């Protein structure tokens, strides 16, 4: 396939990279409505990329000096990330126009970071993995600080950058140790080298731990989660939406691939680390979210909690675990798209909604919106019959398959604790009487409405035909 020079262009990553530059130039030369037009073009480009990923299943891209690999697992997560970034560009368009942040660079930054994520998901080499992570992160650092005249946005950008750079440094040091002790950067070679030994030597264990720390930063697992609530809070809402929806998908896929490909034979070594990260994330996510009054901080802790559940499936490290991760990630993305589609359209007294207590009385003024929020919250809490329940259900199936009984019981206990703060939002909307006459406006563009109704439809109706998603995720190979 690579013999034909034109076909190179149809490799999804290369197509996305070229199109991103086209988008950049397109925005640069447009005089009017540059932001809106560039966003539309970016959505179109991402859509084409999805088609390419989908129809490109026979590509030999993996052979590109073994820098990247290619499997149904990577394809699934790439499509998920692309769908997530399409959705977040569409739902955030009106918000950006509303706060008069019309830099056409924003969709381009999203495109570049999506490109980084695609490369992250399929990377098969320590070097390509690092470069992909950096491409993704650098775009996100800029995106977090994009609102230049806002102190909180700049602060969150800097915070994200410093902590992200630190974690990249740790990650890189881990890579160097792994390279030093195995003599290879390629995942398959590392795996082959390690399969000859029964136990890791001390240097490799250090390398593994450093890499785990770096990856835990990227997925924001406890105790490396500190940046998440601050960055979520400081960045503009729509950027927060992007942070919540897309990079997590790529980071989760990466941590799965890193644990299950080069280090598959050293399950005992890395599973202890993941086990701790998982338990700590579930409980800290559940408990810390209770005290939050800012909806973005609450969602940050909620995402930390969700990461804990996904890591349970990684500890299980079996086929069911991969299936569970893909189902959970899908449900996580859908639920976050839905909740951010609503948050980016809700205005209280002409300000975009920040405080949870401002939701008071929403059920009176906007019954449909508050019903939707309730459904999303119940789904996030993992209450059947919504999609969130099935994500958790598959995670626990995977864990029990591996006889991780204690971990499963801890997981369900954490889910009960986390149910409290999800219920609190429903309580504020429905049970509290609104005293003051707060004016809540819900204005949503037609495109976001489609995204919102589609994701709500999936949340509610998944139960009626689960096999559609499950058949796809059952056949994923890493």
């Amino acid at each position, binding site marked *: 396939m690579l013999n034909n020079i034109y076909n190179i262009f149809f490799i999804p990553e290369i197509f996305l990279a070229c199109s991103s530059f086209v988008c950049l130039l397109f925005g640069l030369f447009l005089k009017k409505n540059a932001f809106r037009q560039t966003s539309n073009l970016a959505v179109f480009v991402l859509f084409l990329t999805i088609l390419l990923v989908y129809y490109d299943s026979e590509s030999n891209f993996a052979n590109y000096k073994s820098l990247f690999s290619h499997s149904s697992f990577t394809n699934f997560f790439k499509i998920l990330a692309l769908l997530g970034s399409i959705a977040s560009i569409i739902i955030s368009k009106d918000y950006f126009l509303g706060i008069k942040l019309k830099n056409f660079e924003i969709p381009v930054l999203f495109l570049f970071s999506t490109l980084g994520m695609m490369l992250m998901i399929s990377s098969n080499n320590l070097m390509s993995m690092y470069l992909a992570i950096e491409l993704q992160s650098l775009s996100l650092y800029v995106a977090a600080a994009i609102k230049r005249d806002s102190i909180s946005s700049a602060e969150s950008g800097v915070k994200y950058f410093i902590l992200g750079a630190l974690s990249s440094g740790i990650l890189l040091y881990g890579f160097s140790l792994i390279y030093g002790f195995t003599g290879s950067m390629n995942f398959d070679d590392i795996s082959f080298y390690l399969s000859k030994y029964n136990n890791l030597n001390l240097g490799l264990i250090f390398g593994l731990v450093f890499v785990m720390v770096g990856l835990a930063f990227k997925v924001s697992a406890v105790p490396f989660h500190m940046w998440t609530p601050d960055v979520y809070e400081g960045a503009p809402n729509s950027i927060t939406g992007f942070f919540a929806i897309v990079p997590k998908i790529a980071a989760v896929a990466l941590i799965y691939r890193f644990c299950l490909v080069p280090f598959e034979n050293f399950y005992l070594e890395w599973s202890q680390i993941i086990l701790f990260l998982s338990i700590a994330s579930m409980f800290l996510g559940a408990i810390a979210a209770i005290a939050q009054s800012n909806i973005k901080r609450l969602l940050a802790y909620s995402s930390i909690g969700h990461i804990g559940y996904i890591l349970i499936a990684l500890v299980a490290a079996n086929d069911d675990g991969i*299936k569970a991760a893909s189902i959970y990630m899908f449900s996580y993305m859908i639920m976050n798209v839905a909740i951010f589609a609503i948050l980016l359209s809700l205005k209280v007294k002409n300000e975009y909604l920040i405080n949870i207590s401002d939701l008071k009385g929403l*059920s009176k003024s906007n019954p449909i919106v508050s019903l939707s929020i309730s459904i999303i919250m119940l789904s996030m809490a993992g209450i059947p019959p919504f999609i969130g329940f099935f994500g958790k259900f598959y995670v626990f199936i995977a864990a029990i398959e591996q006889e991780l009984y204690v971990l499963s019981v801890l997981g*369900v*206990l954490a889910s009960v604790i986390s149910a409290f703060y999800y*219920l609190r939002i429903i*309580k504020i909307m*429905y*049970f509290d009487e609104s005293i003051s006459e707060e004016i809540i406006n819900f204005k949503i563009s037609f495109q976001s409405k489609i995204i919102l109704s589609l994701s709500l439809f999936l949340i509610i109706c998944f*139960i009626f035909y689960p096999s559609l998603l499950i*058949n796809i995720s059952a056949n994923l190979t890493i």
Partner: protein
Amino acid sequence: MIDWPLVSVIIFLPLIGALIILFIKEDELTSINIKWAALLTTLGTFILSLILWLQFDYSNPSYQYEEKFRWFDDFNFFYHVGVDGISLFMILLSTFLTPLCILASWNNIKKRVKEYMLSFLFLETVMIGMFASIDILLFYIFFEAVLIPMYLIIGIWGGNRRIYASFKFFLYTLLGSVLMLIAIIVMYRNTSSMSIEFLQGNYFSYNTQLFLWLAFFASFAVKIPMWPFHTWLPDAHVEAPTAGSVILAGVLLKMGGYGFIRFSLGMLPEATEFFIPLIMTLSIVAIVYTSLVALAQTDIKKLIAYSSVAHMGIVTIGIFLVNQQGLEGAMMQMISHGLVSAALFLCVGVIYDRMHTREIEFYGGLVQRMPLYATVFMIFMLGSVGLPGTSGFVGEFLVIIGAFKFSSYVVIGAAFGIILSAVYMLYLYKRIIFGTITNNKLADILDINTREKIILIPLAISVILLGIFPNLFLDPMRLSLELIITNYEIANAK
């Protein structure tokens, strides 16, 4: 036999009604349409569920009207519903009580009528679905989904401490049921089947059974509720609106008893044998302790709530006797309690609607102004006490007969509880109904109106019918219960 999916229609008819209501715009004029739509849907469901009873084959102990479709492609989870002798009356109880609840809320729910009716119709769907499920995953989904509408009903339309009560209810019961989820998955891993029918064959090793049993116990003991897991119940009952209390006492508590029969007895017989002394002790403590607590209450609803815990203690004794009389008695007691306590809460609702207080002190001498009310209240009060001729008697009598085969100490405990129940109910009745009116505010209280008659009289008739013709109800369930007992004895004889 019927060749159309009767059970599914019964399950999903209320949901369809809810969808229709969702599209009715709510304002002053149309809220009456919403109420009528809800009432007609629930009545339709009730009539359909009567067909279940009329066409029921008494000679078949296993599931009837079965429907089975593949649901998940990767695991053996099915959409599998059906009705047997045990679930038949639980379904009838749900479909019978829901229209009464809608009627009972006809005038006293003034805000958010649409959401209220939606919650009730959704609740009816999940209740029926839960009792009709043959697949455990399906059962679990319905079992947990019950929490959503009930949380909203207590939280939105409840009393002053409704938020505390609704959170306590939700989190307490969720904590119990998530452990059941783990147990369900473990069962599936061991047998690759989720069919309740299939799993009733003792497939688990003794140690596994013990853990599974405890997980199921956590869920059902909270739901039924057993002492000491009952503390959510008085709060939930007191704060819930009348119709919420009716459903809570009438149907939701039975989910626990139903679960014990299906799962603990049916699937984990050896572990059940091991834990019987625990259950008996907790039940007797529950009966005696909560009866004494009930005696000290000043709030009518709280008193009835504690009496529910005591009555459920008799149910758990009956179930874990695992003999024909005990199980039949437990089933009868559940049906009877479903009708009687629901009716008692409705009776409290009648005077609460008029006076807006539930303090016993406030009332007295109601018979002077409300003779008809005094009469129906008496029927239900006697039903709760267990007077011969009412439904309460049959259940308690059978349980005590069954208990003689097990241990006379259990009989003494249960009988003591029954005596105490007479004490607190008669004392309550005396304080509210008899005497002369001392409180001036009661001077012009009105007797029950036509709507309230329509609600209370069918309940009174069924309480007496159940007491006089118990075989009408015992015959359909007999074979299904025998099947469970036979399986249990075979498993424990090994």
